[in-house]
């Protein structure tokens, strides 16, 4: 199973925030058994969607010098759910970043209604070897629209 939990960035301000999209499709493997009588995207995977988008924003903020590894999630609230056909609008705001770690906050919405928020996701930064930064930058920036 592939594990790309956001599909697209729709806007971003490097060092500040990013907005992305996660499409929910009936075809997805995580819906098998969750639940047998009604497919619902598991809330922990929506956290992962926010964490992946936040990680993307952190890597961009460090100018491709670091990858972000999630270590802590605080103040999680789940208000609703996402089912096949829904498009989740993910929004993350970079709260803090230094040489060792970064903190973001995030919200997930479906059709204008908040379904999940996290007060903070904390990452430690993993340094990308200098010789690999160029190819990482290329991979992040050359993706066709």
């Amino acid at each position, binding site marked *: *199973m*592939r*594990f*790309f939990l*956001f*599909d*697209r*960035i*729709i*806007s971003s301000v490097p060092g500040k925030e990013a907005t*992305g*999209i*996660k*499409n*929910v*499709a*009936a*075809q*997805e*493997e995580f*819906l*098998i*058994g969750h639940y047998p*009588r*009604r*497919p619902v995207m598991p809330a922990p995977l929506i956290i992962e969607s926010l964490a992946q*988008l936040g990680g*993307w924003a952190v890597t961009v903020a460090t100018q491709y010098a670091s990858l972000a590894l999630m270590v802590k999630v605080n103040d999680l609230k789940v208000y609703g759910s996402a*089912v*096949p*056909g*829904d*498009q989740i609008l993910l929004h993350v705001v970079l709260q803090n970043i230094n040489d060792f770690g970064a903190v973001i906050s995030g919200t997930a919405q479906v*059709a204008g209604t908040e379904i999940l928020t996290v007060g903070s996701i904390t990452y430690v930064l993993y340094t990308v070897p200098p010789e690999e930064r160029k190819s990482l930058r290329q*991979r*992040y920036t*050359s*993706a*066709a*629209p």
Partner: protein
Amino acid sequence: MRRALLMRFLMIDRICELELGTRARGIKNITLNDDFLEEFFPGMPVFSPVIAAEAAAQLVSWAIIAARDFSVKPVITVVDSYQCTGHIRPGDQIEVRGAIDSLSEESGLAHGSLLVGGKPVLEIQHAVCYLYPLAELDPPERARLQFKNLYVPGAPLPEVPSTSDTPQAREQVPVRPLHWIDRILDQSTDTHITGIKNVTATEDYFNDHFPHKPVLPGVIIIQCMVSLAKHLADRLLAQSSGHERRAVLHRSDKIKFRMFVQPGDQLLMQAKLNQFADDRSLFTAQASVSGKNAASLRLEFDHVSRDEYLQRYYDL
């Protein structure tokens, strides 16, 4: 033995509007995790434009199944024409439209289209199906439950994004190449190509197509023949343009399915090149199982460079 459910073959995510037996509109979401992503040029993953046709077929199918109170399921036999004018990218929401032109006790006639951002990307005209007893393919209570989850009356269709958005892919991610042909038997000439696909019970789409009777989906048969013909067209293009131009399916017509292809069958496919020019090629292709004609169609490919591809199919 009960097969483990790994991958599905559910090509409609939501039905938003439904007039029983007449017309329907729905949504199909494309994710980066989709099993049917392919790349015509590197770094540009799109949802297989052939498999995409299944979305319209399944939507029409639901409109007929519900109209006949879950007693029948349509099985497609003839499609007059399929035309693809744009490719669908991960992150896109497809608006799927289906309309039923006529419906009798035994058969139906329908057409459908797919739109992304309000623009048509795929059109299917004059599709004939015959109605098969549902219970022989699918447990009716399962179909009822699926329909109950799918149908959200009055749910909004995908919005047309405002032009101020500048969508971009998250980053380049690897796309697994899809292997539709198991073996190419003969490509010694520049006009014919022959290959086989072995149909096996472990293929994932049989989980949903269909639970009681595994049948190779028609779009998969088309996809196999398209891949075979494309292989020959791309080889000829590499000789004449050095990989600069590639073949992209633009149109298919006179599509006929003549039998159920099932696990254990070996699909022998032959594509014949009828015309080859700088900008397009025309094929006729046929698939058979044990000497019996299983399916046939005509294919028209556009030959495009990367820039032409971006302009015509990708950057809509």
